[in-house]
Structure formats: structure tokens, C-alpha cells
């Protein structure tokens, strides 16, 4: 029974990857990364993917609203990230893959750090957005 349960969980996790309505590689430059430092303005904790919105400067120093695509609730909860783990106004440092579309302030999360308390995601086992 235990084996069957594990297989079932594995199947659900695999399926949830396929359910994503867009392809990461088609949406983001998976060979590039950028680092943003800014303040959280919104945290949308939902499936299939969560989004962190921050105000942070772009390459030319102009402040922009960035949408950072993160894992779904199942994946994040398993890593200890809850709906209230991040709050509006938190200062964070985020590394991610930039959008392929010029002018689109959209990033795929690689890792996130909140320097004020050391909260971090993206450096542990399985902490890769799927």
C-alpha cells in the first residue's frame, strides 16, 4: 500500500508539471539569470504557479514592477513556504531567469532571500520551480 501511495504521489507531481499551461523554456531565457533587489508589493499563492511581485530597478535603474513566477502551493508548502511567509514591504533579493520578450518584467524564480531574517528558498534539495 505504501508503495502504491508513493507511486500515486509521484504520478500527481509528474502530472502537475505537465499541467503548467505554458512552457518555461518557451517563456524564459533558461540560459540567463538576473538578480533583483526590491520590496514585495504582492504575493499570489496559488496553483498552478505562485507569483511574487516586487518593485525593483531594471538594468537602467528605473523602478519597475516585476512578476516572479514561483512554484505551486503544493511544492512551496512542502518546502515550508506558506501563504503568510512573505509580506508586503519585505525587502528581498531574487535571482531568476528573465523573460524572452523584451520589455516584459517577468522572471522565473531561481532563489529568493530575505536578508532581514535570512529566510531563503531555492538553494535546498528540490527547490526548483516545476
Amino acid at each position, binding site marked *: 500500500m505504501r508503495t502504491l501511495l508513493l507511486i500515486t504521489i509521484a504520478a500527481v507531481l509528474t*502530472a502537475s508539471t*505537465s*499541467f503548467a*499551461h*505554458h*512552457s518555461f*523554456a*518557451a*517563456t524564459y*531565457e533558461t540560459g540567463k539569470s538576473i538578480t533583483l533587489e526590491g520590496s514585495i508589493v*504582492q504575493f*499570489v499563492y*496559488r*496553483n498552478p504557479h505562485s*507569483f511574487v*511581485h516586487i518593485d525593483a530597478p531594471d538594468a537602467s535603474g528605473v523602478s*519597475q*514592477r*516585476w*512578476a516572479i*513566477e514561483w512554484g505551486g502551493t503544493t511544492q512551496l508548502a512542502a518546502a515550508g513556504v506558506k501563504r503568510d511567509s512573505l509580506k508586503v514591504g519585505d525587502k528581498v533579493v531574487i535571482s531568476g531567469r528573465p*523573460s*524572452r*520578450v*523584451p520589455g*516584459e*518584467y*517577468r522572471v522565473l524564480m531561481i532563489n529568493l532571500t530575505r536578508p532581514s531574517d535570512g529566510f531563503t528558498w531555492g538553494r535546498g534539495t528540490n527547490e526548483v520551480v516545476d
Partner: protein
Amino acid sequence: MLLALAIATAVSFRVSAQGGGARPPDIAGEWRLDSNEDPGQPPLADYLGLALNEAGRLRADTTPESIWGTPEYQCRPHSAPHQWRGVGGARILKDLDPISREIVGYRVQFMRSLDRPIFVDGRPHPPAWAPHSWSGFSTGEWIGQTLKVTTTHLKDGYLRRGGPQTSDMLTMTEYITRHDDVLSILQVVDDPIYLDEPYVLSITYTYDPNAGPATENCSGSSFAENGGRDRHWVPHFLPGQNSGIGEFLKTQSWIPFEPIRGGVKTIYPEYRAVLAKSATVNTLTVPVSKTANDVARRIADQSPRDGQVHVMPVQGNVYILIADGTNITASVGRDGIAIVNTGSAQMTDKVLAALTELARSVVSPPATNTCFGANCPGMPSWSSPYFNAVVASPRPARPIRYIINTSAAPEHVGGNEKLAASANFRRAGGAGGFGSAVREIGTAATIVAHDGVLTAMSTPANRAAAAPEAAWPVDTFFDAFYKLSEYVNGEPVILYHAKAANTDGDSFVFFRHSEVIAAGNLFSTISYPLVDTTNGGTIQGVIDGLNEILDLSVAEYRSQGGTWIVPGRGRLSDTADVASYRNMLVMIRDRIRDLKKQGKTLEQVKAARPTLDFDGRYGATTGPWTTNMFIEAVYKTL
């Protein structure tokens, strides 16, 4: 490519002949996707095996995957050609006639879909001006043991993931055959807008009672995905700037570059001569399959110039009259008639006849007497004295009460004078009563429009004489919007001014309870929008107007239906259709702006063909509004 189709069909006929009229197999049930010829997530910009034409290649190159992140597309199902290939299985349900218990249709469900009906009751496909949907309109017929499904009225989408797109003029034919517990689907996608020959693909499913598709909920009401800073953001690549082209060859370097760009000459065995350097693509001859999809005719049929008036119900109180190439939107009910635009002058008699007939059928339809005795609604006293009024001579329909003009274009105001005069909408008090200063009260319908329409009709710039005064708007507005001062047929009617759009006086009209918007010239499903630069029109104004329509509109479910939008010309549409049109205009605007920024002259811009991937769908080389005129107008107003 069509050889496989021919063989499949021939086999089906043979089975039929051998079966001697055997019942078709039962295809209902839960089906698990086994295999198909196309990976669900092919590499980015991999067009290998696709007969993309020049337009199809440009469209694929410039349309990014993040278009899914726009509010109007976040909840859309997979597009029809991809639906069978998506994960999650398929469920096929039978619809039975409750009396005969014959199968009258099937419904197919996928994980990310609305139900897809397939009618096998012999009904025809809808007219070309009917709306398109994500699953389209499908009819089926059994050919031996194979169900042949023909689908039209599809929305635009993608042929497969990673770039290649389809237009909304594609047709799809599927041959569904059950072999024991295996279901094979042979799919033929015929879209000459983007393909030089139909695309043929097979998919295999296995019967599995546990494979039923789940419902994938969508919480796409936010526009978070594209940054959340601009709900009107349209992601796209300028030509030549898609970073994904050729990217996957870095890990699969054995594949030559040329065939991954698609093209009919690269998908046949003859192409080996090119690889062997004994021929070039240009000199190659391949046995191209012909399309059976007469796109030009089907586009023209959306707005037929046949001298007739075609009536189609929309939603709530609202109907469309397709009147010889232009649309009239009509609210019809117990309060009377309110119409948006009046068609061309020569169609007025037919329009009036159609409206009168429509009003009669809506307000006083022939019906049996359904209430007897002394207490029937609407019959003060016993029912029998009123018998003839119910069954033989009901009250006449109410006349036209309001005429709203979305612009001063002749095809929108041509019937103003005659239709307004036809209305004798009496109000107590007569001409001498309150409001007598306004000439039309009690004697004619009220004509409402933005002040720019009145200016254009009363002081035209390029015409010898003004339109007759009786055709002019008598109730005009200057502000961003204008609410009719009273409900019409139980609902508010609001006019929104689209500033500096097609001209300086355009509006669109919102019927707020019926959830219908008459878009006027802002939106057409058969042409690029008119941008009359001599009368204050700009491309940005048109885009802004479309964005405002999108802001007011709400899709019913999965980015479909809900608020219906009546274009100035063409088929009935919804939010996703308007978004698609808006997206196209943004892409074209940005391309022309970029070329202009590079210092290109107008002629150089035209030579660069910035509208190439949309010309087959919306362009024209002759007539009053050609592609070159459109490009020039965009160029001038940027």
C-alpha cells in the same frame, strides 16, 4: 501527406462494405492518451515537418508563449488542433434522443476544455457570421466504422506548442476509429492562411475506465503573469528578435537549420537532394496537397454583400442584422426598438421590413391562448372577449425609438433619415407639450451620436453637400461616455467615445444587461480597421478603444462567450476575438514604429511587409481600404 488519409478512408469504406450495415462501434467512455506524433512541449521554434508558408513562419516567430499570460487568454483551453494531444485523457459522452434513443451527438471532454459537442443529427454548419469558439462547430457522420468529424467556426490558436499558430479560418477534419480498446484519431488541419498544405497527424488512445479527465480550474482573473503593471500588455517579438530560433540545435546539432524553419518543400523525401547538395529548395518540386478550404470566400461570407438582411439573435434583447456588408445591432422588446447604425441607404426598406418582422415576432408572437377565466394576466375581465387579440390580432410592434450612430460612415448612417421618419413614437402631450423644442419627439426616432458625427454630417470636408438635416444626430455628446436618459427594453444603454480612433467621432455602445457591445468600426473580422487620418483617426486611438471594450467585457468561462461583441463588419465575436484583433494591431504598430525609428521611409516600410502574417486574413489589394492604405495610416500616426 494526404496519402495516409486516403488509405484510412479507403480502409473505412472497405470495412463498411464488409460489415453490411453493421452498427458503428461505441466510442463513448474514458480514454487514455497513448501516443501521438507530436511531443506535448516540442522545442521552442521547432517547425520541423510543418508546411508553414511565409506568413505562418513570421507569425510563429513573433508570437511568444507568454501570450498565455494576458488576461483574455489565461483561461483558454488548448486550441482545437492540440486538444487531443494534451495530457489528461479524454471522455466521450453520448447524447441520446429521449424518444427514439438514437445517438444525436457526442460530447468530448478534455482536462482543460469546455465540452466539445459533435452533432450527428444531420444539422448544417452555422452561417459564416456566427461566432467562433475554442472547440468550434463539429458535425459527424459514420463512414463504415469510422466517425468523420468536420469542424468549422474555430478560434485562432496554436497548431502546436512552441510557436506555430493557426488562424481562425482553419477547418479540422478528424477520422475517429475504434479498434477493440484502441481509438485512433487521424486529424487534418487545413489552414491556408499559415500552411501551404493541410497538416496531418495521428493520435492514439486506449480505453481506460480510470483515465477520465479531471477539471483544471483556472484562476486567471489577475494579469500577474506579465508583470501586473499593464493589463493591456501584448507580449510579442519584433521580426528577427526571437531568441529561441535555432536554440534547440545547440543540443541537437545533427539537424540542419533550414528544415526546422518549416516549409512544404522541407517535409517531403525530395528534400534529401538538398541535404546532398544536388538541389536547392527553390528548384525542388514536391507533390503538395491542395487545400479544400476556400478562405477568401469564407471571410467574405462573414459579411456578405448579397443585397439581403440576415437576422441572428445574440443575447438578451439584442439581435444582429447583417445588411449587405454591414452590421446593425438592434435591441428589440416591449419598449420598442433601439438600433446601432442604420446601414447603407439602398438597404433601408429591407432593414425596416426586417426590424418590423423581428419586433412583431419578439413582442407579439403568434401563440395559443394559455389562460382561461376571469383572472388572466393582461386581460381585465373574462378571457373570451380578448380571444382574437391573443390568437389572431395581437397589438402591433412598437416602432424604432432610438437610432445610435457609432460613426458618420455612409454604411452606418445611410438609413438614418428614412428609419427615423418611420418611427412615430407617440408620447402623451403631442407636439405642443413639454419637449416640443426638440423636433423629433412624437414624430421620429431620436438619433444619438458623438458630436464628431454631427460635425461630419453637417459640415463634411470632402462632399458636395451635407447629409440631409433629417439624418443628423439630434442628441449628441462630447464627453468620454453618454448614458441614454432612460432604460430601453429594461436595460441601460451607454455610448463610449473612442477618442481619435477610426475618426474623431467614433463610439461603441454597451447594452448593459444583455451584455452586448456594438463596436462600430473599431472592430472588423474581415479587414484591418479604418484609420481615417484626414478626419482625426489614429492607430493608437483604435487600440485604446479596443482596450476599453476589453475592460468592459467579461468572458463566461474559459475565455469564451460572456460579453458578445458585434463588429462593424463581420462575424459575432467575444472577448478573446477582440483580444486577438487588438494583439494583431499592437504587433503591427510596434513593427512599424520600430521601422520608422530606424529611419525607414513609408515606401521602405511597405516593402518590409510589416503586416505579412495577417494579410491573408485581413488584408486587401483592392477596394476602399487596402493593406497599403492601412500601413500608411499607421505610419503617419505614429
